[in-house]
């Protein structure tokens, strides 16, 4: 009977010891988990910050493209106006002042050719970059050829 009780006490002590050891192990794991969670929260914050930056960048890119589309549309409208300004009839003008119109058309064609080169990625010349007067700009596409020019 006594041995039985001694057995129970020893077993209980062993069990309690093992339980304490287990608690210590758990504690270590919990501490590690807490560190990981903190690091995860900090990383998540960084991710949110990066997302905010990305959204700002997306908005800016959209704004720039919309501005470009509007400016190019304006260039196209200006071309249309040049052909039809004050009931202008380019055919009649060409009959009356053939040489002058031929010169104007060839100049316009050269300018339009340069516009296509710029649109395809050709770098702007210093002259084009610095043009601010109407007489200095490329009237076919000032919005892409002459960044310093402000229409007046």
């Amino acid at each position, binding site marked *: 009977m006594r041995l039985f009780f001694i057995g129970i006490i020893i077993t209980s002590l062993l069990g309690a010891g093992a339980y304490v050891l287990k608690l210590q192990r*758990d504690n270590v*794991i919990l501490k590690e988990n807490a560190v990981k969670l903190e690091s995860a929260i900090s990383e998540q914050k960084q991710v949110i910050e990066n997302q905010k930056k*990305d959204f700002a960048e997306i908005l800016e890119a959209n704004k720039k493209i919309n501005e*470009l*589309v509007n400016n190019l549309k304006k260039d196209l409208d200006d071309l249309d106006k040049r052909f039809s300004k004050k009931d202008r009839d380019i055919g009649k003008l060409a009959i009356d002042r*053939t040489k002058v119109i031929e010169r104007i058309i060839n100049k316009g064609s050269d300018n339009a050719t340069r516009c296509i080169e710029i649109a395809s990625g*050709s770098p702007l010349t210093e002259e084009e970059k610095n043009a601010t007067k109407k007489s200095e700009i490329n009237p076919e596409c000032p919005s892409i050829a002459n960044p310093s020019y402000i229409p007046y």
Partner: protein
Amino acid sequence: MLTLAIFLTNCSGVKQLSIFKEEVKRQELNLEKPTPLQLEQIKWIIITSENAEEVFKKMEEQGLDPVLFGLTDNDYQLIAKNFAQIRNQLKITNDILDKYKEYYEPKEKVKE
């Protein structure tokens, strides 16, 4: 009792948290931008019923074949507008491409 102790110590344990991080970046495409166009200049000749003879005579004097590919004044306006539209589209497409490149392959990342 021993069985109970073993049961308590092993079955109700705290599980270690595993956080998986997978950050496998795609290789950058790095396609070269196409070379900007270098176009040839063309010469327009206006021909009317009055100057036709003179124009053809000049062409022959310059050693050119006396033939012209013509457009009416209306069609000339249309071709000018068509080219302006093509130019605009080219510029927009190019700029969109640049924006994509800046966004997905910024220079800072390339340096890293």
